């Protein structure tokens, strides 16, 4: 069988089905990403503000927010008056 370059994922998919937990994990991340970007749509927010709005533990917000920052979707936007928490906003020209 001749392998079609650039379209090889299908060959492995035939041999090795994707485990359910992997697809569940993807769904969970996609849901969190959407919720987080939605929460930041109108105005910048800090981690504690996002945690309240998304009803999510603060450490989980930090992890997901920093991941989205790494993926180029979010950027810091100044710090609060107490110099404690950064505000984060959707990155201009960020790919979404």
């Amino acid at each position, binding site marked *: 069988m001749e*392998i079609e*370059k*650039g*379209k*090889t*994922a*299908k*060959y*492995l*998919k035939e041999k*090795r089905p*994707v485990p359910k937990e*992997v*697809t569940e*994990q*993807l769904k969970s*991340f*996609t849901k969190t*990403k959407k919720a987080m970007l939605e929460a930041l749509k109108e105005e910048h927010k*800090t*981690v*504690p503000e996002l*945690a309240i709005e998304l009803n999510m533990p*603060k*450490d989980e*917000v*930090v*992890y*997901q*927010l*920093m*991941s989205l*920052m*790494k*993926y*180029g979707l979010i950027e*810091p936007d100044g*710090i609060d008056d107490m*110099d*404690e*928490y*950064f505000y984060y906003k959707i990155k201009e020209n960020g*790919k979404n």
Partner: protein
Amino acid sequence: MKETKKILEYDALVVGGGIAGGESALNLANLGYKVLLVEKDLTIGGKMIMLSKVFPTLDCAACITTPKVSEIARHQNITIFTGAEVKRINKLGEHRFEVDVLQKPRYVNVADCTGCQMCEEVCPVSVSDEYQYGMVGRKAAYIPFSIASPRAAAIDIENCTLCGACERACPTKCIDFTQTEEEFLVKAKSVVVATGFNLFDPLKIPRYGYGSQKNIITSMQMERQLAPTRPFNTILRPGDGKMPDNIAYVLCTGSRDKSVGNPICSQVCCMYSIKQAQLLMGALPMADITIYYLHIRAFGKGFNEFYAQAQDMGVEFIKGKVGKITEKENGNLILRYEDIEAGVVKEAEHDMVVLSVGILPNQGISDVFENEKLELDPFNFVQQSDMLASPAKTSIEGVFVAGTASGPMDIPDSILSGGAASAETTSYLRRETV
């Protein structure tokens, strides 16, 4: 039909592509020997390439490592296998080793990958990034980190949904999901063991609360936060994203502690903690840094001056053994400790705690030797059979040890040890031709 292994021949096999293994490989290659460097990770450079700066000079770790890594990668006498494992080493006679090497699939043709990261951009998956010690996510199609060598993508097949988006985005069509494991039979005349060390897992000390209390991190996690390729925009508490202003270091976490099975000193924790404290005072000028220690071991060249410099900068040193760490509702942490000089138990509040974790042996390598035994010392590091006269010599003639595979040591000593291993390997190889 049984598939035959590819046969490769080298003068030296170096197991481990960290700074010690890299130094050994480079020295041997410069003398004209053909070297195979086998690294289990996706990149060479070991733990040093992940560090922020080095003590006591505060030179940028990446600035020292990357030119060396680049020289190793481009040397015509060095072949590098990353993502590969040595499965078996058999000594057939002097200067005759037979080695089974398993090359795991990367699902990317490294030679064709330009490191453009377009696969990473389109990959929909996000999983914990082991190169950032779990503080942030990474994609399933990813480049380990920006200064990785080779700077080429890899597919984390365990977490890949096989959606094919990476393949469609790749401009050079270098992603190949049909790759499979490859087995090699390597015939080598000598072996250098440079398998490095493991870090102590602080989950083994539940009273410190690592894992459950999110503002307690390890020294390696702080190292990443201080590095230019850091996971966050600045130094932050992972528990709530607050900028810390009162940070505590707990030295000897998992070192000099018989209760966790590691009674020896890790040699580097005092100095890397002092280094991090100085770097934190630069990054967070208003922060208070306190180091809880048993003894400060500042034994190397310039180390004591470095320690004094930290004291002059305002780092507080408390001779105290921390017994327990508990979390307050606001995420701050209460350290209950024995003030050794005052002889009383005290409590102190900090808003972030760094556990200065110790160095443990990476034991697996002794199991791959089939017909001769690679002796380990009482602490399970590779035994140096003649430590004073021939520090790289092991229990097997023709097998030499480099770097922290033989015990805890700092970076300059690891490089020296790599040099010693290459010198002794050369001497052994020359004996074949005499």
